[in-house]
Each structure stands twice: as C-alpha cells, then as structure tokens.
C-alpha cells in the first residue's frame, strides 16, 4: 500500500515534470532503439557511396547525400550507435574506476587518501577536453574502445569525488561504527555497507554522465582525435560538413543538431532520475 503510493508519487515526479520530460523520455527510447537497430533501419551502410554528391533530401535519401555521395540519413543513424556505445562504455569505465578510487580514499585515512584525492583534484584542474585530447593520442586508431577509455578516464574523477564524500559521511553513522565494533573486516564493511549505500547516487551520476560523455565524444571527433573517419561519428560529420558550409549547410548543421537533442534529452532524463532517486544531489552534479 505504502509502496504503491510511493511508486505513484515517484512516477508523478518523473512524468509530472512537464511536456519537456515526456518528449525527452520518448526521444531517449527512440535514440536507443535506433542505436541498436541501425543496420536494420538504414537502407545503406554508412560508408557506401550510393548516390551522386550533395543530393538534396528526397524519398530515397531522406537527408540528402554528402560530399562523397554517402547517405546522410544512414550515417546519422549509425552515428547514434557510435554515440550510444561510446557514452555507455565511458560512463561504465568512469563509474568502476572512480568508485574504486573513491571507496579506497574514503576508507583509508592518511597518505593513501591524500594521494588519491589530490590526484583527483589535479585531474579535475585540467580542462576535460584537453585531457582527453592528450589521452586520445595514446592510441593509434580512434576506435570506440579507445575513445571509451579516454572519456571514461576523464569522467572518473567526478565519481571519485562523489563517492569519497559519501563514504566520509557514512563513516560517522552509527551502523558503521557498530559494524567495526563487532569486528567486521574492512572488505566486508566496504562491500556490505559503503558500496550499497552509494548505489542510488551512482545510478544518478551514471545517467547524468551519459549526456556529458556524448558531448565529449562528439567534441573529440570534431577535433579529429575521437572516432576516426570514415566511421560515422556525429562530431566528425560536422567537421567534414563544415568545409561545405556555404554550399550545403545541412551537412554540418544536421548531425550537430542531433548531438544537441541527444545531450539535452539525456540531461533531462538524468535530472528526472536524480529527483526520484537522490534529490540531495541537486545542484551538485
């Protein structure tokens, strides 16, 4: 009964936030669907030269063709796939690495904690884009794995900070003191008490970094250090299209518009998840 009421309230918080949230929710579902089923949905492969150059939109080429005669519509659908996988992968990497560091720093006092937290501060003081540009050069080829790692490493530090803060807060709690008093081992305390209590915040952070990661990935690809062409990442499509801005502006504008929509949609959904799961994080992320 109470749970049902709570569920109802949560659903209201989630969907009662206005038209924007509903639209963004639908967009995210659609985006994921397209990302997964891109090969089935698109008529051409993204690297296939299938028509004349710079065709205007028509029934066959919904968004026209690009400078090499590739179908822009298919490329954008495959681009969704790249963005989705890259953001999922990098957020996951950031989550795992950041949480681990945060737990260690939070649990151990003194030198270890100092080194980890100051390292985190150091990473955070370097602009994210510049850090990931340098990191990207560690890899010869800009594939989805390397980009995932690069962005994941960049996102890691914000996870470390949040988890560290949470653990410090929890340490004061009576049940942690009690667990120590009854002689539970360190690992038991970390895995049984600290980690589960971080879950709500971590889920929130994860959804909120997804949008962030998509934006970073597209910026990297735009600068030519992300996904290597001809793989169709939205950022590199914008950068290629920029050359033909005067002639055919849609080549640059269109993929960028999808970056905008996707990042906004993920951010709005992330806000919704936060308000349901962990409203305390409001303003902190």
């Amino acid at each position: 009964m109470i749970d049902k009421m709570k569920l109802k309230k949560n659903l209201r918080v989630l969907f009662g936030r206005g038209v924007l949230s509903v639209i963004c929710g639908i967009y995210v579902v659609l985006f994921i669907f397209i990302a997964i089923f891109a090969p089935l949905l698109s008529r051409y492969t993204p690297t296939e030269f299938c028509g004349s150059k710079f065709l205007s939109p028509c029934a066959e080429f919904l968004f026209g063709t690009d400078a090499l005669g590739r179908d822009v519509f298919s490329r954008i659908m495959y681009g969704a796939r790249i963005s989705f996988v890259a953001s999922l992968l990098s957020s996951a990497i950031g989550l795992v690495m950041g949480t681990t560091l945060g737990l260690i720093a939070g649990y151990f006092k003194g030198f270890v904690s100092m080194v980890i937290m100051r390292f985190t501060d150091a990473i955070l003081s370097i602009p994210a884009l510049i850090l990931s540009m340098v990191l990207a050069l560690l890899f010869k080829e800009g594939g989805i794995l390397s980009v995932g790692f690069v962005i994941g490493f960049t996102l890691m530090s914000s996870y470390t900070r949040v988890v560290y803060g949470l653990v410090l807060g929890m340490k004061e709690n009576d049940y942690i003191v009690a667990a120590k008093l009854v002689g539970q081992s360190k690992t038991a305390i970390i895995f049984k008490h600290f980690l589960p209590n971080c879950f709500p915040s971590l889920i929130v952070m994860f959804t909120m970094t997804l949008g962030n990661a998509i934006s970073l990935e597209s910026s990297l690809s735009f600068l030519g250090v992300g996904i290597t062409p001809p793989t169709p990442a939205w950022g590199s499509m914008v950068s290629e299209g920029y050359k033909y801005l005067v002639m055919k502006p849609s080549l640059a504008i269109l993929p960028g518009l999808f970056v905008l929509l996707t990042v906004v949609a993920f951010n709005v959904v992330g806000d919704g998840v936060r308000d349901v799961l962990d409203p305390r994080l409001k303003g902190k992320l």
Partner: protein
Amino acid sequence: MMEKLIEVKNLKTSFFSLGGEVKAVNDVSFHVNKGEIVAIVGESGCGKSVTQMSVMRLIQSPPGKILSGEVLFEGRDLLKLSTKEMRLFRGSQIAMIFQEPMTSLNPVYTIGNQVSEVIRTHFKCSRKEAWDIGVKALRDVDIPEPELRMRNYPFEMSGGMRQRVLIAIAVACNSKLIIADEPTTALDVTTQAQVMDLLLNIVKTKGKSMIVVTHNLGLVTRYAERIYVMYAGRIVESGTTRDILLNAKHPYTKGLLKSVPDLYEDKDVALIPIKGSPPSLANLPDGCAFAPRCDYKCEMCLTGKAPELVQVGDNEHYSACLRNGKEEF
C-alpha cells in the same frame, strides 16, 4: 466581556501540488483576547503551524493559497491589507518565534545587524539608535553582556541564546501579539523552562498576548488560559484549560490527555498512546477525520460531512463530535 485582539474566522488554506489539493487549514476559527495566552495543540502535520503562517500571510504561493476567511486584528482584516501594509504589520504588531533557533538567524550576519535591521524597518531611527534599542532588548531578555553579543554571529551562540535573540526582536518592536511556534521543542530541558518563563514574564509584564503552538498538551496546561485542539486541519475542541483538562468531550482530546505523563496524580495510570496515525491531508476520509482511530465511532461517524463544533458547556467550551453530550463514553 474581554476585548478580542485577534479573531480568525473560517480560515481555509490549501496547498496545491501534483498530488492534488492538501487542505492544511480547513475552516478554522479562533480568537485571542488582550493579555491572554492561548494554546493551539495538535500532532505534527495537523495544520497548526500553517494556520499561524496564514495569519501572518507567510504561506508560499504557489503552492499554498489562503482560500477564504478573515483574520481580524483589532478589527482590521489582515487578509485585505496590501502587501506592504501587511509587511509592516509583521514584526511590529505580530511577532513570530519559530521552532528552530539554530537555523532561524542568518548565519552570515551578526546578531546586531539582524536585530537593528528589524528595528529600522519598523521605526524611523538612525543606525546608532536602532543599535541601542537592540542592546536594551537583549538585556530585557536576560542575555549577558548584550553589547558584546550584538557583535557575535549566530553560530557563536547556543540555541537558548538564539531563541532569546528572536524574543528580543519581538520585545524591541513592541509587538502586541507573539506567536510562538513550538518555541522550546528544539532546546534541551533546562533551557526549555528558562525560555518559557522568560516568554511568560514578558507577556505578563508588558501586557502582550500570546499564541503558543505545540504538540505537547502537558506543557501548555501550566500557563495557557484557553486551549484549541486541532486535528487534520480542523479545530475539534476548544475551551478553558480547566474544561479541557477535566471535562474533555472529544475522544481525540481524551486520547491526547491519556498519552501525556504526570497529568494525573495517580501514578499508576498507564500512558495510552492513540493508535494509528493521522490521515493524509491530501486524502481525508468521509465523515469525521478522527473516526478511523476512534474507539467510540459509529456508522454515522464514517459518512457524510465532518462534524461541526457544538457548544458543550459554559465558558465557550466547544467540541466537534457526533456523540457530544448525547451519550457517555
């Protein structure tokens, strides 16, 4: 006939949220005579604080809204005043003291800054004069070394001291009515008694009136002259303290009395808590709101409208229960 200082008539305040309308104050009427101390008693969430915030017109809107009613202060309807007139009423005519002294003062300004700011809002005077009035007010509420204390920040003072500062503001501005919302709940027991004595002393010596809002029926019986008992946004019983204590009519009031320790001399009487919990104000049951928790309910209690207040004795003793006087229980 005593002169009424403030009279609230049929006040209705609701909050509108995604979950629907929350009727926090539902047709509440009460009055306070000049020089009188009146208590409003009820469990948390019964609307007693919202009633006072409505009187002060401090309800956040949205989501809250005062739907109807009158608040007559010396004959003037506060709800009809302009925003500015009402603002100047607050602090000067009616002072309000809140439950949380620890957070009720702005952490980034000194006591003196905050006290003299209020004084300068209500009196035309220089900074220096306001400061001196402030020092005097602090002295009036027994704060030691008031000159030094004026330069302190709130975090440098204890909860009891901060509550005294808030009382000092009321003293300095010569308020006719003090509304004290759980003024001592957040303090420790010894400080509670001191602060309460101070308040009573000020009310009595300066001829003020006071409304004490509290959940603790036992506490108020010592000094309140009349008591209003609130439940689920309505007043369910009102009368002199003596009538409420010795001759309660409403089952809820009786329940409250049984759950308060040390009221009866017979120490063997066990404390009996009221079973269940108050209904959600967003989702009030039909009939009497207390019926689901009431031991004496009958079919009639569960349907129709909520029972009206009916006079059940002399001295303005009212109760809102279908069984009032009809049948003993």
